[in-house]
C-alpha cells in the first residue's frame, strides 16, 4: 500500500479522521517556516478546504508549499478532501483544485472529522486503489 500525507489545522478535524483511519500517515507542518517534507514513495493526500465565498484560497498554504516541490508532486496519486457542506458550492473544493492542478483523481470527500461510514469507505477504498495500480510512478 502507498503512503498517506495529510494537513490538519488547529481545529484538528483531519487529524482526528486520520487517527481513526488507523493507517500510517505523515502530517504536514502547520507553520510556514517549517521544512517541507520530501516523500520517497507514492502517496494519497488528505486535505481540508479553506475557500472564501468566491472559492479563492481553498488549499492551505502549507499544502501548496508541499506540492510546489516537484518531487513530491510526482508521487501524488490521488486526493481526499474534507470540508463543510454549509459552505455550499465550495464544499471540499481543495480536492477539486488539487485534482485539476496535479491531474490526479479526487478519491473521496467528507465533512469535518468524518463519520464511521467515511472512515470505512476511505479505508477500503485506499486498499482497492493501491491494489489496482502499479506503485511505481509513471
Amino acid at each position, binding site marked *: 500500500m502507498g503512503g498517506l500525507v495529510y494537513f490538519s489545522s488547529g481545529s484538528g478535524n483531519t487529524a482526528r479522521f486520520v487517527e481513526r483511519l488507523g493507517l500510517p500517515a505523515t502530517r504536514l507542518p502547520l507553520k510556514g517556516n517549517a521544512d517541507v517534507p520530501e516523500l520517497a514513495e507514492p502517496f494519497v493526500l488528505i486535505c481540508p478546504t*479553506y475557500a472564501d465565498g*468566491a*472559492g479563492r484560497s481553498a488549499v492551505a498554504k502549507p499544502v501548496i508549499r508541499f506540492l510546489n516541490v516537484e518531487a513530491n508532486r510526482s508521487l501524488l496519486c490521488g486526493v481526499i478532501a474534507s470540508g463543510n457542506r454549509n459552505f455550499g458550492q465550495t464544499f471540499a473544493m481543495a480536492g477539486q483544485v488539487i*485534482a485539476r492542478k496535479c491531474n490526479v483523481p*479526487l478519491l*473521496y470527500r467528507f465533512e*469535518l472529522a468524518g*463519520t*464511521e461510514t467515511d472512515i470505512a*469507505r476511505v479505508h477500503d477504498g485506499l486498499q482497492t486503489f493501491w491494489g489496482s495500480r502499479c506503485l511505481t510512478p509513471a
Partner: protein
Amino acid sequence: MKDIHHTRAVPRAINWNRLQDDNDLEIWNRLTVNFWLPEKVPLSNDIQSWSQLTEDEQTLTIRVFTGLTLLDTIQNTVGAPALMPDAQTPHEEAVLTNIAFMEAVHARSYSSVFSTLCQTSQVDEAFRWSAENEHLQAKSRLILEEYDATSNPLRKKIASVFLESFLFYSGFYLPMHWSSRARLTNTADLIRLIIRDEAIHGYYIGYKFQRSLERLPEAERAELKDFAFGLIFDLYDIEARYTEQLYDPLGLTEDVKAFLHYNANKALQNLGFEALFPEEACRVNPAIMAALSPGSDENHDFFSGSGSSYVIGKTVATEDDDWDF
C-alpha cells in the same frame, strides 16, 4: 479623586503585523471577504412564489424566520460580546466584533424578507408568537444562562458553538425545503449566505475553545465535555418539541429531526468532540443536502464508484499566487 474601581486599563493599540495566532488573521480575512448585505439578494423575485404558498405555509415560514431572528439578536447583542472579555489575543477580540456585527446583519435580513414578501399584520403576529413560544424562549434561556458574565469562558464558547452550529438548523431546514421544490429560491440564497457565515463562526469559536481546553488539567477537560454533552441533550430535547410543533402539520418532523442530528454532530465536531447521534439517525433527505450545497455534487468521487474520477471542474475564479506550477 480617582475611583480605582472604575479605572479601565488603556488597551494596547492592535498590531495586525504581530500575530500570536495566525488563525485570527485567516478568519478575519475570510469573514471580511465574505461580507454581504441583504440588499445584494433580489428578494422581490420571490414575490410570486410567496403568493403560491398556502396561508399555513406562509405563517410557518414567518414564524420560523422570527425564531431565527431571535437567535441572531441574542448572538449579536449578548453572545459574541460576552466572548470578548475572554479573548486570548487582541485580534480574536477584533474578529468577535465582526461576528457580532454580522449577526446583526443576519437579524436585519429576515426583516428584509418580511418587508418584501409579507403583510405587516402577519409579521407582527409572528413576532408576538416568538415572544410567547415556550420552546423558543426555553432554548434562549438555556443559552443566555451560559452567557452570563460570571460563567466559565469555556462554557460560554460551548453555548455559542451550539447556538451557531446547532440551534439555527430547525429553522434553516424550511428555506432549504422550499428551495428544493423551487420555491422562494432567492430567499434560500440569502439563507445560504447566513449558513456560510455561521459555519465560520462555529469553526472559529470551536477552534478557540480547543486551544483553551488543551491547557486545562484532565479532570477539568472531562468536566467540560460532560457539560457540553449535557447541554446538547437538553437543547435537543427542546428542539425536538419545537420541531414537532412547527413541522407536524406538514408531515416533515422526522425529516427535520435527521437534519438536527446531523448538525448536532457537526457542532460537537467543531468543539473537537465525537459525534453523539448514530449515522442511521443522521440520514438527511438528499434534496435538503443538495439545497445546502447546490452544484457541489456534480463531480463524483472515485471511491463512491460513480461518474468520472477525474475532475473537470469549473474554472476557479482566481488562482492562488502561491502555486509555483
